[in-house]
């Protein structure tokens, strides 16, 4: 009897959770479905859910018409390079704070966090001006730098929380055996830290990919990534639902897949280790 009750409860839970989950996911699902319809079917009344003629026409049109490849390439370069440079800068910093803490480590960490809180709009013009003066406006290099800097606090913090979980005894043992600092980092810490570094990389890539304040304000044509590509659809062109959907699907698909792998790390990365 008890067993029957629990499995009935489980059925109710399952139904409720799936219903809510599908409701929340619906806008994404609807976008994906619409991307395979013809423009006529996309605005049909009543709306067609599944029984339409599936077509890849929209994807073709979007790619031909809007130079999608360049936007995609810009997104990959900006998110990818900013993440890699960020890691190169952050790994040593996080390593030293985790393993050679001083009295000021905590203050430095909190100060880094505070730079993340600086509202972008408050420093929009100075950055804009500096970009013009240095010829960085609408350049990938400029955006890579900005994206690296705005996410650097998160990278340092995430790495720090991961590094702190590496037991210090292992390091002491290595030191006793006469390992130099370089060997310590290269042969002991790096292998142990790889999972942490990988998830930091993943989360940071996602954040940089989706960033939509600086990418919209500092790019025009050459360096514009997918965020700007999609924003260009807010003109009347956006009324072509099927093409809009195809463009949107292409912009979010890579991240949805990466996000699948990063859901656990998301909590740690976005709460600065305060919730684990």
């Amino acid at each position, binding site marked *: 009897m008890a067993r029957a009750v629990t499995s009935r409860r489980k059925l109710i839970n399952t139904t409720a959770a799936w219903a809510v989950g599908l409701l929340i996911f619906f806008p994404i699902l609807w976008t994906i479905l619409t991307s395979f319809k013809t423009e006529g079917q996309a605005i049909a009344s009543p709306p067609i859910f599944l029984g339409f003629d599936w077509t890849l026409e929209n994807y073709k049109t979007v790619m031909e018409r809007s130079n999608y490849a360049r936007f995609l390439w810009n997104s990959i370069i900006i998110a990818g390079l900013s993440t890699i440079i960020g890691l190169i800068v952050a790994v040593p910093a996080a390593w030293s704070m985790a393993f050679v803490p001083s009295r000021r480590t905590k203050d430095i960490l909190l100060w880094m966090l505070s730079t993340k*809180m600086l509202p972008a709009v408050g*420093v929009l013009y100075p950055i804009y001006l500096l970009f013009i003066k240095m010829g960085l406006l609408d350049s990938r290099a400029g955006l890579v730098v900005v994206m690296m800097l705005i996410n650097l606090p998160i990278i*340092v913090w995430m790495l720090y929380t991961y590094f702190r979980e590496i037991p210090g005894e292992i390091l002491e043992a290595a030191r006793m055996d006469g390992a130099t600092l370089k060997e310590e980092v290269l042969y002991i810490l790096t292998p142990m830290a790889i999972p942490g570094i990988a998830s930091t990389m993943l989360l940071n890539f996602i954040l940089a990919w989706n960033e939509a304040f600086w990418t919209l304000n500092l790019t025009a044509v050459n360096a514009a990534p997918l965020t*700007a590509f999609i924003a260009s659809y807010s003109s009347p062109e956006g009324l072509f639902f099927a093409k809009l959907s195809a463009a949107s699907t292409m912009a979010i698909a890579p991240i*949805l897949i990466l996000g699948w792998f990063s*859901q656990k790390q998301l909590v740690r990365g976005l709460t600065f280790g305060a919730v684990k």
Partner: protein
Amino acid sequence: MATKASRSAARLMMAPAVILLLGWMLVPLIMTLWFSFRTYLPLRGGDQGWTGFDNYVRFVTSSSFWPAVQTTLIIVLSVLIITVVLGVLLAMLLDQPMWGQGVVRILVIAPFFVMPTVSALVWKNMFMDPVNGLFAHLWRFFGADPVSWLSDAAMPSVIMIVSWQWLPFATLILLTAIQSLDGEQLEAAEMDGAPKLKQFWFIILPHLGRAITIVILIQTIFLLAVFAEIFVTTGGAFGTRTLSYLIFQRVLESQNIGLGSAGGVYAIILANIVAIFLMRIVGKNLDN
């Protein structure tokens, strides 16, 4: 444990990150402060010298200031209430035993990974369009007149879009917190015959207190800066002009740098007030 040599090496390793962030913080901040005390109109005469606190006074006395403050507060508070309340409920639901938990989790989290311009545009056109939007179809199906969401109900629409984006974040963090709850305590309460509501009120909610605080603080900082959702949907029209959007317009659209910078300083102060509370909690956590 650390030797003198490793300590100076450590300092060296920290230097690039610290110097970069220091530059990133100080250079624009000083420039914003500098501009905020000057009359600076790049398209109408350039830099015309000092004005003291004129820009600060003009920014808060302009007719668009208080509506912008009000809009900002309404958006931040509404989204916070919606995401935290629904987030707690959703987290409790997802914590129950069920089939396909992993898949449901991903369905719920997915909106967080959608770039803001995409979600704004998808909601704007495919759901809220007064002619072809899904809501318009739904309204017509029930015999009602379709609503022009983004002009007649602009604020609720923006709030709904932003809530949809942030609900996954709140849910995910609260779910993580719930899963760390000591099951024995709940079992004991169950044995003593405590009703579910009391268990929720006296055990689950206090346990979630810290996570809820963190969700509120982090979301507040991001919500104060909401940009793409407004840029794409209403462009600040129909009463959706937030403080950050107003500053954006002053700086880039009307090219009044002095005025915009003074607004920027206000925004920085506002964000820092929230940040202080967040840092206190995070800092305490560092000690253990």
